[in-house]
């Protein structure tokens, strides 16, 4: 009897390892930025001429949401973000990530002014139609700020605390579960501190 216990234990261990391994999403890469200051930038916003930088929001907790009109998964989370923006005091800042895609430049490359104009027009139309959850949105046309934030798939959402430190990162659309069980408790925690 004892002879079978060791292989059985080994097998059970293997099953546990595999079960845990299969449940994990290989696309979810832990961000080294959590616990670090949010990378600084200064980018034009969707409306107005004033550029925005994260330092402007020092002293308050805010969400930083990476989005684009071409991003299908962003539409999935959009109604939830709109709903959230109505009820909560935490502002959401949008990062319009690479709004201008290769397909937009099929008839020759656009210059930076034209790119920004087209991106603004299309983003505004999108937000007018589906609701605007963003306090403001910054335009990252070449995706360089995205690289600084370790963006590798849109949408992504960051929680930034009063000191400007990233406290949480979520990759993929924000679901009601993520909002209820992860974002909201963390927002409460960092608002209190």
């Amino acid at each position, binding site marked *: 009897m004892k002879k079978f216990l060791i292989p059985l234990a080994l097998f059970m261990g293997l099953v546990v390892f595999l079960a845990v391994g299969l449940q994990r999403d290989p696309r979810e890469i832990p961000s*080294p930025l959590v616990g670090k200051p949010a990378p600084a930038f200064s980018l034009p916003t969707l409306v107005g001429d004033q550029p925005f930088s994260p330092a402007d929001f020092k002293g308050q907790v805010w969400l930083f949401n990476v989005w684009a009109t071409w991003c299908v998964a962003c539409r999935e989370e959009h109604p939830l973000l709109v709903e959230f923006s109505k009820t909560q005091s935490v502002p959401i800042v949008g990062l319009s990530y690479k709004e201008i895609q290769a397909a937009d430049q099929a008839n020759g490359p656009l210059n930076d002014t034209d790119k920004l104009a087209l991106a603004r027009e299309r983003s505004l139309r999108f937000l007018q139609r589906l609701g605007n959850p963003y306090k403001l949105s910054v335009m990252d046309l*070449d995706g360089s700020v995205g*690289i600084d934030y370790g963006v*590798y*798939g849109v949408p992504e959402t960051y929680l930034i605390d009063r000191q400007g430190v990233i406290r949480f990162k979520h990759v993929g659309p924000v679901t009601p579960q993520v909002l209820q069980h992860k974002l909201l408790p963390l927002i409460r925690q960092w608002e209190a501190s």
Partner: protein
Amino acid sequence: MKRCLLLLLIGMWGAIGMNTLRAGEAQPMADDPKVEARLAVLAEELRCLVCQNESLASSHAELAEDLRREVRKLIRQDMTDAQIKTHLVERYGDFVLYRPAVKPLTWPLWFGPFALLVLAVWGLWRYLRHRKALVIQRMSEADNAQAQSLLKD
């Protein structure tokens, strides 16, 4: 059977051919050969985060293109390879490296397989010694005599 083998061979040949074709597609923007040469070496060591089993050098994903551009920019800023890797690890984590750094967190990854091998060899050695003892024990004097007599007939 022969036809099966032939089909398999053709399939394999096709797959190899396609691979070389694909590899040829990723063409660097050769504005500065020195930068491109360094990029080519570095990009092999860096992982594309979208298509996770491809290196930056071989990936066609848009993010890979952006990251190649970023690495080019860093090379032009005269950063060393190690500095460039650190720069990317700070943003994307160890995952971006194809060969993760050897540090306490990655020890299981680097040495785990060897530890398992040592354990398996030890187990095998113990099992074999145990079995040998069993075999020797089972051949008692009486058994031996019986075997001898049987063999004689």
